[in-house]
């Protein structure tokens, strides 16, 4: 829906109201061992209204977007807030705002490929993999795209039209060693349409070679030794560290839910060399993987500096928690689908680069591990975190030695961050971050490599 058309519904707002029309368009193509096992396009769209009244929220949505349903969802959301208000009175809260108008379309810069051409692209990648690496037990090549298009209007005058596309190609390679499977995945692409990210299949071949090399090493890998070790967390791990271990712990709804971060505001929680930011849309002069210019509460987005020189400076807020803490909201409230309400979410969370060289960092470790790629992660209200690690190497006397098999690392963030002794001078964003809370949502996470003490699970 055009923004101007949506604005005509402002006259129907009786309380603080957000009105959002959204469409998520997705494509998923999957080749397993050369067979097309997935070939699916989806479109989910509709209109949603959220109303705040006497400290209570009402929400309603409908997949049809027309004059009648828009009126209905506003009325229903208001009635739902009234329903809760009729049962219990809460103090009236004035929600802070940072209103404005944002138009952020993303136009096609390159000719769009047809479905057949997209399948052929994947087919070519798959043919290359099996031709070059015939000893693979299996391979999986998947293309997934997501375009999130939102039009938003709020009572206090915020209005936005945004389109945020993401296109990813993932490859999974599997070998069998002594009758047991060993697997490694890689993901390419990021912000933009498929055609923005991928031009020719052969542009991926050098990266596939790297993936295969690491898989071969892993197939003869060893179990890491359980216990606490000196480790280098590569950018992928540093990214998930930022997101899981610190980011979730300082989301204001989690803080109000009991997170230990409540006691650490304006205290030293990390080495003074560490600064960590949840970037809204631009980091170090470049567009982030998931740029957010206005959130789904109509707040103009700005960076949230979470840790500055080791000091925990702020939590991430929505309008209501910003009112609770008496701070300015920074645009962290986001909804995944039209049928979802905005939740406090990270956008693009990263540790800023330091001054060290990765080679020097590895050379500084007598016995430890270089951990390169994560599978999944989880945070806790205690700031204890866990990540699955699927790619890494042992370090012996300053040199990379044998690859390691899958393991899990864990630690208490506000302790572990103080053990960081070196930070590399580069920065890499992960391209495929997806965060799960009540809803899933795309996120950016990245950073430099960091040297730290961390606990490794295993035998």
């Amino acid at each position, binding site marked *: 829906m055009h923004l101007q058309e949506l604005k005509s519904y402002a006259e129907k707002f009786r309380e603080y109201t957000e009105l959002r029309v959204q469409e998520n368009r997705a494509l998923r193509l999957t080749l*397993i*061992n050369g*067979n*097309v096992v997935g*070939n699916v*396009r*989806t*479109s*989910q*769209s*509709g209109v949603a209204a959220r109303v705040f009244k006497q400290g*209570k*929220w009402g*929400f*309603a*949505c409908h*997949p*049809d977007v027309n004059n009648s349903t828009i009126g209905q969802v506003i009325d229903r959301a208001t009635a*739902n*807030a009234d*329903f*809760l208000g009729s*049962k*219990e009175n809460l103090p009236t809260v004035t929600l802070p705002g940072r209103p404005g108008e944002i138009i952020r379309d993303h136009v096609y810069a390159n000719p769009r490929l047809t*479905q*057949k051409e997209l*399948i052929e692209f994947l087919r070519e990648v798959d043919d290359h993999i099996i031709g070059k690496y015939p000893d693979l*037990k*299996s391979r*999986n090549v998947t293309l997934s795209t997501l375009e999130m298009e939102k039009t938003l209007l709020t009572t206090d005058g915020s209005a936005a039209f945004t389109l945020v596309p993401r296109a990813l190609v993932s490859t999974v390679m*599997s070998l*069998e060693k002594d009758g047991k*499977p060993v*697997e490694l995945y890689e993901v390419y692409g990021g912000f933009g349409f498929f055609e923005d990210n991928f031009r020719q299949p052969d542009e991926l071949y050098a990266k596939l070679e790297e993936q295969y090399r690491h898989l071969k090493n892993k197939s003869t890998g060893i179990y890491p030794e*359980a*216990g606490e070790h000196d480790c280098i967390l590569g950018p992928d791990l540093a990214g998930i560290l930022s997101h899981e271990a610190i980011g979730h712990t300082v989301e204001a*709804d*989690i803080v*109000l*839910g*009991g997170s*230990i971060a409540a006691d650490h505001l304006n205290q030293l929680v990390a080495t003074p060399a560490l600064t960590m930011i949840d970037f809204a849309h631009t980091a170090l002069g470049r567009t982030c993987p998931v740029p957010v210019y206005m959130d789904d509460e109509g707040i103009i987005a700005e960076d949230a500096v979470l840790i500055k020189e080791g000091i925990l400076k702020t939590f991430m807020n929505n309008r209501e928690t910003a009112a609770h803490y008496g701070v300015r909201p920074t645009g962290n409230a986001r909804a995944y689908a039209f049928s979802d309400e905005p939740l406090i979410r990270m956008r693009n969370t990263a540790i800023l680069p330091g001054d060290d060289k990765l080679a020097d960092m590895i050379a500084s470790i007598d016995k430890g591990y270089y951990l390169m790629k994560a599978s999944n992660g*989880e945070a*806790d*209200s*205690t700031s*204890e975190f*866990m*990540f*699955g690690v699927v790619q890494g190497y042992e370090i012996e006397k300053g040199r990379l030695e044998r690859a390691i*098999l*899958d*393991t*899990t690392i*864990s*630690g208490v963030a506000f302790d572990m961050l103080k053990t960081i002794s070196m930070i590399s001078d580069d920065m890499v964003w992960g391209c495929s971050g997806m965060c799960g809370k009540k809803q899933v949502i795309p996120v950016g996470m990245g950073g430099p490599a960091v040297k730290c003490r961390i*606990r490794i*699970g*295993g*035998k």
Partner: protein
Amino acid sequence: MEPEKIIEIGLKELKKLGAEQFELELNLAEKQEMNVHSGELKLFRTTVNNSLRISVLQEQKRGTIAVNKLDDDIIRQACREALEMARSSKPDEANAIAPRQPAATFTRGVLQPDADAMYTGLAGFVRDVKERFPRIILEEVIHDHTRNRSYFVNSNQVDYLTDRGFYTFVLVFTAREGKHTSSFNYTDLTTQSLEGKFLDRGSFSTLLAQSSEQIATRRLADKFVGDIIITPDCLGSFIGSITSYLRDMPLITGTSIYRDKLNQSVAVPGFTLRSEPLSNELEDGYFVTGDGFRAQDNVIIEEGILKSHLLTLYGANKTGRPRAANYGGNYIVDPGGKSLEDIIASTEKGILLSRFSGGNPSENGDFSGVAKNSYYIENGRIQYPVSELMVAGNLAAMLLAITDISRERINFGTHLFPWIKCANIHISG
């Protein structure tokens, strides 16, 4: 537009376009959802959503479109696009649709929600928790009623209608006193009845009591091979990981650790795992599989013997193995003969594992992760709650190292699980 009319438009259009084989799956969902945030009942949501999935097989090539707008033009357009996507794809002789079966209509659960009763139950729960567990912060409680009307039809004249309605209650919480915080924990319940107090159902009061005392934990500065007693809340994630090896992709790619294990021993003789979407013991289930077959209850592991993979029609065609009687879920683990108290009493050194926060298990079944909300057991007694403790093992080996299964079970409405004790787990603090 009436659902039957939507189906009719789709069927006619696909026939007109010359689609060889096709499926239409229409789902109409309505949800009433109340949310507690940080101990306060804050949000009431009413959502309406649809989904129309159109899948076409043309020359054994498959294309699928899913949309949620259901007007005449969009349905016809989706049919054309699904056919075009199929034509753009590659042939696979394993592609197929379900054969003709007798038409049927299924109804289950509570179809109309009672918002006042939902509010009363939820508000009462919040009040009860504040009174009985003053250290607990209810980070989030989601209490909803969802009604789903689902139509599945295909060009082989499969014609199923399912109308289901259930209440669910999901709880995420932490305990806090002063500056001491427990790990968060969570649990859930699916039910057809709002009678009685939520606090008395599922594992709510047990977990809330445990978290209340878990604000003071101890690190176990030890590294040993011992026992774990997996609680019913925690068992779900292990069952989910184990059954993932029985599904299409790992069996098609040949990487499943259970690919050649059908009718062989994969667990101790006392272990039986069922998938029973039709069970009267559970409050939720399903009647039609995702590929259009009437679902049946299924024994996956019977007395330690693997009796069924979880293959869809495509997976069965691709691997030459039998299609499963259902597509998994609604898991029931048969009870054992010992009480939980006796199982703990017989444990020399180990962990009561209440929540597992771990990396995705490896393709070979290896797992490792952090024991959350868990307790150290020594000399047959629970000693103290632990933190920063890691456990590691192998899923396949773990099923063969089960030493006890409790006679008590927790019914979550969607699953029914006992406590299970396993030996030879690596534990490191």
